């Protein structure tokens, strides 16, 4: 083994890391899951036994090397194990988004030609059965939770534990086969295939090699000093590259413990019980938490409210400095310690953040107020920038250099380059192998020297060397008068208001900018309750005149701030509507990771956009909606179009 120049200590695959962990951490917890009200724990040797049993069962079922094994379900240890079992027998795991409707699944399952599917429960079994006639390569399905499946035809259906038992029974016979298959895995064999959510067009299968995954896990674990004693909560979709790297890659590399919540609804309780030391959440989760805290503080008694406000103001002033180790006066430090005792400590405990050493947010821009709130509590929240094609990490913020408006410096081993049009390119050991069955797109994204286009426009800040992202490169355009149009920049500013959930700004090639706005039902609903405003639905609340006034004031505030920026001052929103429905991934308006799909929205709501530009004061529209079970319906509404004040740009006028 030592003759190989690659791999770390001869560890060339995820199963190899697993074997190492079972040997060097014989008693340490590897995976935990809350079930029947109790945290069930598997140590590394137990995990190895479970994974091996399933791998044996896979061979028994006829899984061949190079087969694709699709994994669909919520975060559960058994499903993570299924991925490693697949790797063990030379197959390639393909995790899918569990909330995808059958149609979307059918595309991915057909594209990779998955012969085997491992699912969580009846819901997923039903979806696959619904589309199985269109999946010529599909052969067998394994399920974890047997409830409701007793009466199903079991010709192509197997219970997970039964497959394991069958594997265990034939251990002596089949183990040599597994050992030999495992020995064939090298640093460049495929580790996993992940489908990108696709803001445009069909999802693409990103092939990641063992080299990508292990090198990235190693360097990122070292960057943040992750240790075997760390623990994380696995609650983000398994199909997302980040979850794979955190819950499988880094977990296998460092040997830390991955905890799976009891159900999606109990995530916050479970978070509090586990108190992870390493935590990742998209900005949306932090936003929701902050909103919840603020709403509950509104209901608190006067003294408690005063205490909270006083100490939070102090924390905002000195908290981030204390966290970054900058000098703070003794008195402020003392006051902060009192606050820790009275407010910050209990609050962190309630949120489940007591033990966090490293926290990350990524995926979208995070509001400075939200970011500062968590940092001022002493939570080491940082930002990173990455994508599936890079095996997550492109840039990240080192401890002590954390700011809300940058995404940090390039990660170890990553080279950055900004093209002339402002697009960010990178090259690293994490760069993906290819898009599966799509050489055209591969060539279009990755050049011969290994540089990958991110599709994002940004620049490297002078002095600090931090990368700042402006917008998706293809979304950046020009207004009719030639000024720069960067919708994301304005959208993010608007989304930082708790009352606004989602914004889509239009204005490319037009003389002025307009916007679609979704209100945040939790925040606005709470405000309505407080002000005795009755409402029966999202739709009714969204068109309430007082809500419209409130949103208008937010838009005008943002316009005033955008006007300060010489480069982007043309992006002020002159007219807007509050949409009658929440943008939804089920309707194709958002991706499964909740990114806005502009082109689809533009087509779908063309009539409303027309009204935004033709000066009319209201617009009637009918919109098709998809329910959770795939049925369709439609909602009709008349929307009020509001105009917002636009501010002149002093510099521009002076220049003329």
């Amino acid at each position, binding site marked *: 083994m030592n003759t190989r120049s690659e791999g770390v200590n001869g560890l060339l695959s995820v199963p190899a890391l697993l074997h190492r962990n079972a040997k060097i951490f014989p008693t340490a917890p590897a995976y935990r899951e809350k*079930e*029947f*009200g*109790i945290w069930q724990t598997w140590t590394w040797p137990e995990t190895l036994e479970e994974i091996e049993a399933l791998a044996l069962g896979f061979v028994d079922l006829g899984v061949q090397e190079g087969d694709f094994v699709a994994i669909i379900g919520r975060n559960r240890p058994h499903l993570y194990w299924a991925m490693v079992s697949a790797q063990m027998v030379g197959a390639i795991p393909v995790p899918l988004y569990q909330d995808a409707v059958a149609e979307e699944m059918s595309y991915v399952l057909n594209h990779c030609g998955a012969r085997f599917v491992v699912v969580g429960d009846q819901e997923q079994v039903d979806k696959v059965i619904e589309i199985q006639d269109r999946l010529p390569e599909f052969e067998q399905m394994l399920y974890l939770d047997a*409830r*409701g499946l*007793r*009466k199903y035809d079991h010709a192509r259906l197997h219970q997970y534990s039964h497959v394991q038992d069958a594997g265990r029974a034939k251990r002596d016979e089949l183990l040599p086969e597994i050992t030999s298959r495992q020995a064939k895995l090298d640093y460049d064999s495929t580790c996993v295939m992940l489908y990108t959510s696709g803001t445009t067009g069909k999802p693409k299968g990103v092939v990641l090699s063992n080299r990508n995954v292990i090198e990235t896990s190693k360097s990122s674990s070292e960057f943040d000093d992750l240790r075997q004693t760390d623990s994380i909560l696995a609650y983000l979709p398994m199909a997302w590259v980040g979850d794979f790297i955190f819950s499988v890659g880094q977990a296998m590399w460092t040997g830390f413990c991955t905890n799976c919540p*009891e*159900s999606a*609804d*109990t995530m916050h*309780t479970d978070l509090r019980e586990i108190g992870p030391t390493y935590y990742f959440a998209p900005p949306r989760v932090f936003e929701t938490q902050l909103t919840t805290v603020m709403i509950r503080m509104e209901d608190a008694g006067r003294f408690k409210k005063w205490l909270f406000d006083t100490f939070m103001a102090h924390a905002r002033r000195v908290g981030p400095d204390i966290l970054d180790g900058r000098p703070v006066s003794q008195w402020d430090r003392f006051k902060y310690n009192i606050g820790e005792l009275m407010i910050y400590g209990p609050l962190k405990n309630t949120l489940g953040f007591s033990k966090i050493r490293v926290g990350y947010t990524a995926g979208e821009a995070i509001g400075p107020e939200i970011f500062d709130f968590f940092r001022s509590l002493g939570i080491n929240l940082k930002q990173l920038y990455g994508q599936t094609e890079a095996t997550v990490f492109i840039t990240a913020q080192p401890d002590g250099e954390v700011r809300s408006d940058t995404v940090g410096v390039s990660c170890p081993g990553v080279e950055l380059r900004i093209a002339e049009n402002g697009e960010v390119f990178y090259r690293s050991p994490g760069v993906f192998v290819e898009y599966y069955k799509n050489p055209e797109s591969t060539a279009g994204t990755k050049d011969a020297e290994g540089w990958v286009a991110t599709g994002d426009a940004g620049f490297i800040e002078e002095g600090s060397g931090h990368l700042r992202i402006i917008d998706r490169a293809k979304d950046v355009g020009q207004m009719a008068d030639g000024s720069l149009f960067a919708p994301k920049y304005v959208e993010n500013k608007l989304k930082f208001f708790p009352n606004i959930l989602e914004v889509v700004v239009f204005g490319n090639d037009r003389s002025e900018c307009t916007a679609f706005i979704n209100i945040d039902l939790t925040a606005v609903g709470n405000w309505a309750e407080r002000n005795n405003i009755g409402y029966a639905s999202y739709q009714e609340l969204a068109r309430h005149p007082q809500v419209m006034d409130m949103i208008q004031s937010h838009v005008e505030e943002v316009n005033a701030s955008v006007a300060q920026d010489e480069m982007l001052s043309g992006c002020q929103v002159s007219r807007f509507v509050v949409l009658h429905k929440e943008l939804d991934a089920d309707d194709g308006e958002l991706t499964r990771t909740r990114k806005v799909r502009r082109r689809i929205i533009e087509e779908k709501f063309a009539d409303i956009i027309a009204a935004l530009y033709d000066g009319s004061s209201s617009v009637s529209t009918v919109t098709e909606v998809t329910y959770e079970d795939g049925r369709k319906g439609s909602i009709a509404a008349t929307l009020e179009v509001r105009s917002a004040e636009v501010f002149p740009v002093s510099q521009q006028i002076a220049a003329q």
Partner: protein
Amino acid sequence: MLDQADGYVTADGRKIGSVVMEMRNITLRFGGVEAIKDISFDIREGEIRAIIGPNGAGKSSMLNVISGFYVPQDGEVWYKGALRPPMKPYQVARQGIARTFQNIALFEGMSVLDNVMTGRLTHMKRGLWQQAVWRGPAEAEETANREVAERIIDFLEIQAIRKTPVARLPYGLKKRVELARALAAEPSLLLLDEPMAGMNVEEKEDMSRFILDVNDEFGTTIALIEHDMGVVMDLSDRVVVMDYGKKIGDGTPDEVRNNQDVIDAYLGVSHD
């Protein structure tokens, strides 16, 4: 097919066993009012048996006779092959009959978990003193019972509200908690009094799925009263139809659906 002494096989292939409970010529009077008039039917092991009928037909009275809360003036109740003497509700519970109520009867101030644990009371043998000191056998007993309760919580997907006081829950969830408490008793006969009353379509779908799953998973015999005809016809294996205290139909959903008396009772025909 239904008359076979040793049960029958349902359309979806489940085997229904022998008679668990038999009502023989039951008549129940409140003063001069005859709520139930000379009704006989049986409930077989493993089946879902529905009692339906228009308002005031005597369905709830019938359920109360089954649960032992009302003692009929005439007729006999046979349970597990023996004639059942008049008994107190707690004695009925000990015999393995559990129920839910039309108007939800939970302990509002207690958490969901505690409510479900009360369903285990008939399975707890330790005395007050040992329970209070909570050492040795009492602790082991509670752990074992908690495990059963947790399995039911998991089964009915109410983990997220485990520690929530019942008073704070919405109606649909309270109904589910009540079902959980009844199931915690591991009953051999489960009585459901209008399990879907007041629910929206989605909640009804959920509840139907849970009822079918309970029957499927635990093999529990279920007798239920329900207004929603669609639900009854989809769920149950056999249906008793009552009108004005009399039995006007008994059989599979299809047989009942085509029964002229039943159609008359539901669509309305003048009663002489």
